[in-house]
């Protein structure tokens, strides 16, 4: 369509920063205290990925990640975000697809071993996971929003996608196609956050 060039970033926003923040806070209250549990499990998974050579342990890590994607698909996108964004129903399918792919490749087929890997891969992958688990929840408060609007791994799309990219980086034989959806989701999330900030300015 020739008019696509005329759309701005804000043209695709269906809701305000205030409404999105309220939705995030309400969702956080509903699932509490699942958030710290999931972040703690993510940290345990990072330690396992970094140190363990056990295929069973690796499977458990991918089980956690696959489950997190499926949980976000249902609990966040389908039950919550879809109330203000019709596109969330499609995002829920995308998240479920990624979750199933991680479960199939990592937990069922056990093809995503974390060994052997280079020190550079360890540093990069580990760093990405640490950012997703520990730094991402600080973004909302850092931008002046309440703690209740913090977004954490396993509960929200962006930190889950970023952590997944980190774990996939830690797995030397991880196929590139498993990174496509997390990359797209991360880009979409950053774009939306930027557009909301601009709109709220």
């Amino acid at each position, binding site marked *: 369509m020739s*008019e696509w060039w005329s759309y701005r970033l*804000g043209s695709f926003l269906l809701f305000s920063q205030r*409404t999105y923040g*309220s939705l995030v806070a309400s969702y956080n209250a509903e699932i509490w205290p699942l958030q710290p549990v999931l972040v703690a499990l993510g940290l345990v998974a990072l330690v396992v990925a970094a140190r363990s050579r056990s295929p069973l342990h690796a499977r458990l890590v991918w089980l956690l990640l696959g489950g997190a994607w499926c949980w976000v698909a249902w609990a966040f996108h389908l039950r919550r975000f879809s*109330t*203000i*964004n019709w596109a969330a129903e499609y995002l829920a399918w995308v998240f479920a697809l990624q979750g199933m792919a991680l479960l199939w490749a990592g937990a069922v087929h056990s093809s995503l071993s974390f060994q052997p890997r280079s020190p550079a891969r360890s540093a990069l992958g580990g760093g990405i996971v640490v950012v997703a688990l520990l730094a991402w929840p600080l973004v909302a408060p850092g931008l002046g929003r309440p703690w209740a609007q913090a977004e954490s791994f396993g509960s929200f799309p962006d930190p889950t996608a970023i952590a997944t990219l980190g774990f996939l980086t830690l797995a030397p034989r991880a196929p590139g196609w498993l990174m496509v959806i997390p990359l797209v989701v991360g880009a979409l999330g950053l774009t939306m956050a930027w557009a909301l900030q601009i709109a709220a300015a």
Partner: protein
Amino acid sequence: MPMPLPSADRRTLLRRGLMLSVCGMLPVHAQPRRELPATSLPPSPSAVVAPLMRPIPSSSEPVPLVGLGSWITFNVGNDPAAREQCADVMQAFFGAGGKLIDCSPMYGSSQEVIGHGLRSRNAAAGVFAADKVWVSPGARGPAQIDTSSSRWGVPRFDLLQVHNLLSWQEHLVTLFAMKAAGRLRYVGISTSEGRRHAELEQIMRSQPLDFVQVTYSLRDRRVEERILPLAQERGIAVIANRPFEQGDLLRILARHPLPAWAAELQCSSWAQFALKFAISNPAVTCAIPATTRIDHVRENLAVATGRLPDAAARARMAAHTDKLL
């Protein structure tokens, strides 16, 4: 508590008042104001005067010059407090004499939020319900319209517009058939921010439309060239969306002082200045600013109660704004 229906005398008085304002723009304070059930809504700071109206060319039915948009502002999901706030805005809108509310299936939860407002404030009887059809292929249009109607809680829409020209050929067949069957009063088509005006123009020339909805603001005056004159020529009502450009226009204008001569136009804020410009174009039937605030919705309706700028004043408003932007 159901909204009290006007008595025969009140109804007659109302009709006369509306016709006076439409035909001659006579003093609008003579018009009676529709009453709504009392709630906890804060009282209006001053006596409310009914807004000026313009007739829909295809029927001569008058509609207030200021309506209520719902893009983003009414998409509040299931948040009960936010829904009540929207319902309060609707109540203030109706209390100030507003009628036309515009929505779309594209606007997230806005249809349901409007439905909540109409139900909880017993206002369904007084609304001019304007919605859109936005789905492709066009065969899915009737099902979407049924869903929209159910979300609003109205038996039929007053106006349905093809949103952003999507599958307009198929949807217009559906909408004209609904109108012929008495299940719809007006048919329209919408676009925004200057998109696809050439195609819109073709549709306006070839189809018996009652309404078009386009973006028209102090800064975005692209429709003045061809669309608005064509609407007048073809007898098509015009809904002006984004008169404040989602607040962007007002944020820019706020950096500058309001010119002293704005007082002559009965404007004491940039919002009044911008809205008065949009509704004073004779081709515009109604502008639909969106808001989440009661004071803003009252201010918007109040803009339509005073004197409207003439062509010379409008040119001065546009020229002054061009210098600032």
